[in-house]
């Protein structure tokens, strides 16, 4: 449950026909998305694909050219402040006052928010492991410490929606693991998490749903399992792949047969895997491998965005 008692699965944010133009450049085109309570939603796209502009519109920082975003019942372009009280966000790199300490930065933020007790500042600094450096000036923090302070600042207001843009950027492996463990924990507490990250295997591990954006347009959106084709495809290997492809083509309940990465991928109902093996054997095609197709989000991403490098 969220702070006002929204049940899990309740829609908290909806973007409809979201479009943003900067002069002749269209950064985001006709984007639709929605967020539910308690889910981890990952938003992926190459550099310059419109992710930050979309996040800016979600927070009411950027005015859409067309379309609208509503969050917690507020129109984010017209009156975002009641909703912003329930959203914690770090956009791109964390930005704080360089001359203030980590503690004082959170104190200033708590003052702006209005009703945050000082004890919560200490608790948040402890949560992100910054309690020993809390009195040091922010300008002396490493990138990883700045990220930790950014995460602490998002959690300070006890938000129902947490927006994290590259939260593991600059963190060491231990810090990265802590953030990876933190994200599902936030969802278990009933918060929604909107995650932008370059680390696709981590996104895959923690996300319920994923959206992929390319040149401002949504190219895919759905549950991670659906996007990866989990439970739909089998990975097959035989001594003669051509004979295997031909035999599969003759079976009516096998579809979407492809030769990928040295294996044959085919859409087969999982409960018929043993039957498939028997049918192929009767056709003198003997399998050396038969397993569920485990696609990686990275390959799906690269396929959909046409990107060879860099997100």
């Amino acid at each position, binding site marked *: 449950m969220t702070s006002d008692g929204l049940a899990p699965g309740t829609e908290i944010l909806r973007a409809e026909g979201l479009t943003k133009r900067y002069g002749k450049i269209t950064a985001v085109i006709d984007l639709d998305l929605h967020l539910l309570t308690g889910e981890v939603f990952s938003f992926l796209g190459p550099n310059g694909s419109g992710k930050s502009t979309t996040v800016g519109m979600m927070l009411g*920082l950027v005015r859409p050219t067309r379309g609208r975003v509503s969050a917690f019942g507020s129109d984010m372009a017209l009156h975002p402040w009641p909703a912003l009280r329930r959203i914690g966000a770090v956009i791109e790199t964390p930005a704080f006052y360089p001359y203030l300490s980590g503690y004082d930065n959170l104190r200033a*933020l708590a003052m702006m928010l209005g009703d945050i007790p000082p004890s919560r500042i200490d608790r948040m600094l402890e949560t992100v492991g910054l309690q020993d450096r809390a009195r040091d000036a922010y300008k002396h923090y490493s990138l990883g410490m700045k990220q930790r302070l950014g995460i602490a600042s998002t959690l300070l207001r006890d938000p129902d929606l947490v927006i994290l843009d590259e939260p593991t950027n600059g963190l060491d492996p231990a810090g990265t693991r802590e953030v990876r463990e933190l994200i599902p924990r936030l969802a278990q507490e009933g918060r929604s998490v909107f995650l932008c990250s370059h680390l696709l295997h981590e996104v895959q591990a923690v996300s319920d749903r994923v959206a992929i954006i390319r040149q401002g347009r949504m190219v895919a959106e759905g549950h991670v399992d659906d996007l990866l084709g989990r439970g739909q495809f089998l990975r097959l290997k035989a001594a003669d792949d051509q004979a295997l492809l031909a035999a599969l083509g003759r079976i009516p309940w096998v579809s979407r047969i492809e030769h990928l990465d040295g294996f044959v991928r085919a859409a087969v109902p999982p409960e018929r895997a043993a039957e498939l093996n028997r049918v192929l054997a009767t056709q003198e095609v003997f399998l050396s491998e038969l397993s569920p197709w485990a696609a990686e989000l990275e390959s799906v991403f690269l396929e959909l965005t046409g990107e060879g490098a860099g997100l």
Partner: protein
Amino acid sequence: MIPLMQAEFFKLRKRMMTWVVALILVGLIVLLYSVLWSVSGRVTTFGSEHQFTGEQLRRALFLSGSVPFSLEIVGTFGVLLAVVLAAGAVGSEYSWGTVRLVATASSGRLRTMGAKLIVVFGLVAAGTVLAIATALIYSSVITFTSGGSDFDFVTGAFIRDQFEALGRTLFVLVPYIGLAFGAAVAGRSTLAGAGAGIGVAFMEPLVGGLMRLGDEPWKTIPNYFINANAQVILLQNALPDALPRFGPGEHELTSRAANSPGVAAIVLVAYAAVFLALAFYLYRRRDITAD
């Protein structure tokens, strides 16, 4: 809006710039008093338009003249410090990228800008009081060491005059603060705000002087500049004759056919309103992005 003002005050109180600005103002008061006190013991007569004796200068530095003289310093040099403070309070949010933090944490963009304006003006007022206090302390030393411990001048009318002078001085600072705010928001930087404010404060008298050399309508236009009208208002502060005015005197303003104090006040209010409206409008309407 109170939480936003508390946060703004907290940020400015913790910032080195605020204390440096205050220190410069105090230093300026001390420096000018020291120079004038020293000069008063070395000259017998001085001044071109009117002749004053060294003794008259020393007596002008006594307690009775300390408030208007410190306000003359604030009204002239304090403008630059107020501009730096105002531009820094707004522009730094852009250069540090904290403008997004503030925009997502506050209860409204107009309230944020309003809180900044109130706190900056409050600090400028506090700085002015600090300048007066410094002048009073230094003046007390001069008064008591020069045998001038006569407090008959402290009457109800005198005290009222000092408060009116304080009000007039703070009033003339508002358009400059507004200009620094507007330019810092428009240029998304401290440099834009400070540059515009200091540039206007420095360039206006020069440009105005050149324009007055011409015929109508050029020679009248400078009468509607900020500085020209600020000087009309500051001239109402009763400064002892022997103390220097850093702006044009009554004679010079008369020769320029300067505006009356009422018109000057309206002109300054109009400038302040335009600059602040620009700052509030741009901050409210514009996208807040990384660059």
